[in-house]
Each structure stands twice: as C-alpha cells, then as structure tokens.
C-alpha cells in the first residue's frame, strides 16, 4: 500500500538525501562555516550554549541558525505530511542525562557522529579512531537493546507538548537573525566569538535555508547516523547506512572540488591527536545516542515532529555542552579522561537498569 511506499522511504530516497546533506555541509564550509564542521549538530549546539552564556569559552559562542532551522524544517515536513504527533512520557529525565553524556563524549572527541564523518571526508584521520569508538559504543548499546533495554513507551499528548520545541527554535532563530545585545557587549548575552570556530560562519540567510532543507529531507527519510551503524550491527540492515555512506562520499568529493581535503593526523582544524580520548569520547557518545534511539541530528528532527522526549534530550545536549566547557572536559582538557570513565559507568548503569520485559505480544 501507499503508506509503506513513498520515494523517501526507498533506498534511492535515503541515498539522495545523504548526497544532499553531504553536498550542503561541504558547501557551508566553503561559504564560511568552520572546516570539517559543516553542519555538526554537537558543535553547533555547543556554540548556541555559548551564545546564550551557558558557558564562557570565548571561541565557541555563536547562535548557529542551522540547529533551529533543522528543527523547523522537520516541523514543516511533519505538518505537511500529517506526521506531527505530540507525544512524551518515555523516561524524559533519563533522556536528559543521556543527552548530557552524549554531548560530553562528543566534545571530548570534538564532534558528533555527523562531524566524525565530515572530518573523515576532510582527511582528518583522527576521525577514524573516533568512528571506531563510535562503532564500539553503538555495539555495546545494541547488546543492551538485545537483552531488553527500553526507556518505556511514549504516549500521545496535547499539542502544546509537541509545539514547545518548535516555539523555542523560532525564538532562537529570531535571536540569530537580530543578534541583539542584552547588556554590555562581551559581558552579557548574546555572546559572539571574535575569533576561533565561533567566528567562522556562512551568512545567516544561507545557514537558515540549508538548515530548513536538511531538516525537511531528514524528517522525510529518518536520516540517522547512529541508526545507520546500529541497524547494520543489529540486523544487517543497510538502509540508513546507505544514506550515511552517501553523506560521507559526497562530502569527500565536494571537499576535493572545493580544495578542502587535507589528509593527515596533525594540525587538523578543531581536532586533537589523543587516540584514547578520541576513542573513549566517541564510545561514550555512541552508547548514549544508541540508548536514546538516535543521533543528535535525529533527536533534533524528532523534536520538530512532536516528540517531547527527544526535545528533552536536546535540552540535555545543550546543558551537557555548558557543563563540558565550564568543567574543562573538552578535548584534552584535564577533566576529560575522568568524565569519559564516569560517563561510561553512568550510562552503562542506565543500560543495565533499563532492562524491561515489554508486554508487547498480546
């Protein structure tokens, strides 16, 4: 029936969208976004946390329009295709904690799964170590899922539950466009980096347009970087993985065209060469994303189609970014090794305690 067949649900659909996202990400880099960062969901959420004054790392403060545009693009797609379904109730507080640790792990590596792929496409070989960590983290998450891990069911809810996140994102988008100062510049929000990655950005209009397109397409295809790897490990299903592969290959080709491909381990933009931390950070991120049901991009898209639990996860990521920078947990900062170990223990306990015998077969 037509419900099960639409172009976006096909293999061709997910591959086309992977190609589109890869091309748009590399193009945004060409137009000013930070190198090998393109549309990194973790980095840009972290930049937003900085712009709002939740952390004071001066080089990564910018209210990135891409993230609100992702959510609103997904919101529009969900409305148009009658898929906007307000729902919540699947262990929101646990999702908040998972969002925090997913972000903290990603910032130890310096990038979410999206950026790991973009870094690899740009020739940053440290990303290989990160991706191996990501795969190990996802594989551990899959083991938890196999023994019955579940955060429980969400339930249909009132429209307001689904509208909160799109509303917050509209506010953020307006702030990103107007960029007002609420007090003395540099001392009160909105903050804006004068140098570093936070000062590198494509124009607001282009960022919004690209964000809306990606959000729309990703909602239609359910594009998910973590889901792609998870489904291969769990059931040898290569559907989402095909989109992720298309994303990687296209970004790589576009980087070659734009002369943005610089292979090597040393001197890569916004990266470090500590193998253990690159591995461990992404392992923590991969495990956290898997237990929460999807990658950071997917969580943002879900929050746009009415999923209040995914919205809580996104707020957890925002908070995690602030905590990571305020407590020096980022990259090779002093607290990073400790928080990776603590995070793996905490998320591991969540995985073990979350075992549930679902009364699903009736």
């Amino acid at each position: 029936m037509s419900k099960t067949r639409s172009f976006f649900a096909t293999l061709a659909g997910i591959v086309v969208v992977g190609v589109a996202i890869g091309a748009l990400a590399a193009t945004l880099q060409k137009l000013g976004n930070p190198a090998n960062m393109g549309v990194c969901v973790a980095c840009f959420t972290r930049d937003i946390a900085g712009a709002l004054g939740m952390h004071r790392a001066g080089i990564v403060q910018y209210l990135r329009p891409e993230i609100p545009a992702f959510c609103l693009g997904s919101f529009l797609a969900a409305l148009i295709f009658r898929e906007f379904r307000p729902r919540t109730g699947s262990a929101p507080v646990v999702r908040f904690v998972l969002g925090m640790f997913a972000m903290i792990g990603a910032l130890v590596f310096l990038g979410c799964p999206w950026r790991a792929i973009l870094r690899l496409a740009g020739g940053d070989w440290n990303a290989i170590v990160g991706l191996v960590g990501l795969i190990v983290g996802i594989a551990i998450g899959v083991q938890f899922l196999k023994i019955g891990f579940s955060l429980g069911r969400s339930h249909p809810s009132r429209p307001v539950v689904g509208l909160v996140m799109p509303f917050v994102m509209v506010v953020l988008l307006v702030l990103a466009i107007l960029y007002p100062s609420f007090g003395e510049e540099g001392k009160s929000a909105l903050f804006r980096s004068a140098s570093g990655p936070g000062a590198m950005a494509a124009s607001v209009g282009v960022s919004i347009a690209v964000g809306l397109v990606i959000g729309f397409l990703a909602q239609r295809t359910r594009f998910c970087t973590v889901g792609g790897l998870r489904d291969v490990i769990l059931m040898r299903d290569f559907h989402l993985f095909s989109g992720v592969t298309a994303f990687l290959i296209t970004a790589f080709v576009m980087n070659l065209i734009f002369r943005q491909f610089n292979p090597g381990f040393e001197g890569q933009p916004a990266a470090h060469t500590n193998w253990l931390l690159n591995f461990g950070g992404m392992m923590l991120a991969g495990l956290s994303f898997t237990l929460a049901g999807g990658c950071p991009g997917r969580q943002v898209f879900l929050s746009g189609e009415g999923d209040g639990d995914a919205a809580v996860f996104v707020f957890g990521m925002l908070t995690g970014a602030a905590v990571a920078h305020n407590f020096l947990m980022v990259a090779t900062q002093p607290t990073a090794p400790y928080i990776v170990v603590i995070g793996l223990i905490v998320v591991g306990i969540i995985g073990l305690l979350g075992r549930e015998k679902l009364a699903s077969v009736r």
Partner: protein
Amino acid sequence: MAEQIDARGLSCPQPMILVRGALHETSGSEVMVLVDTMTQVHNCSRAAQKLGWQADCQEKGDAYEIKLTKASSSSM
C-alpha cells in the same frame, strides 16, 4: 487469530526488534503490528520484508496497523 504486537510509543529500534523476534518465533502466517509513527511503519515493514514477509499498512485512529503476511503463504 493472528499474533498481535503492540509497538506503539517505542523508540528505535525496539519495534524492529519485536517484529523480528515475533517473525522468527511464530508458526503462523500472519502477524499484526500496531505502531504510532510512519517511521515505525517503514522500519517494521522493511524488517519484515527482509525476512520474506509482505507488509500492508492501514491507518487506525491515532495509530497504524501493519499486517504482515508470510510471502510464501500469500496464495493459500
């Protein structure tokens, strides 16, 4: 009566895990799956089709009902 799976409200990939488990275990030729998002309609249909089952979906109130039929028995 066909076996019923209620996968409403579950996050990825739990509905797919339930469907795969049920299709591996069942001796029948028909399984009904209840989900509440199109994402899970596509996921569960794909998981079933990979195991050689046919999927047919109907909207049912706030949810979707997917009828899975063993492909080899469809002509029976």
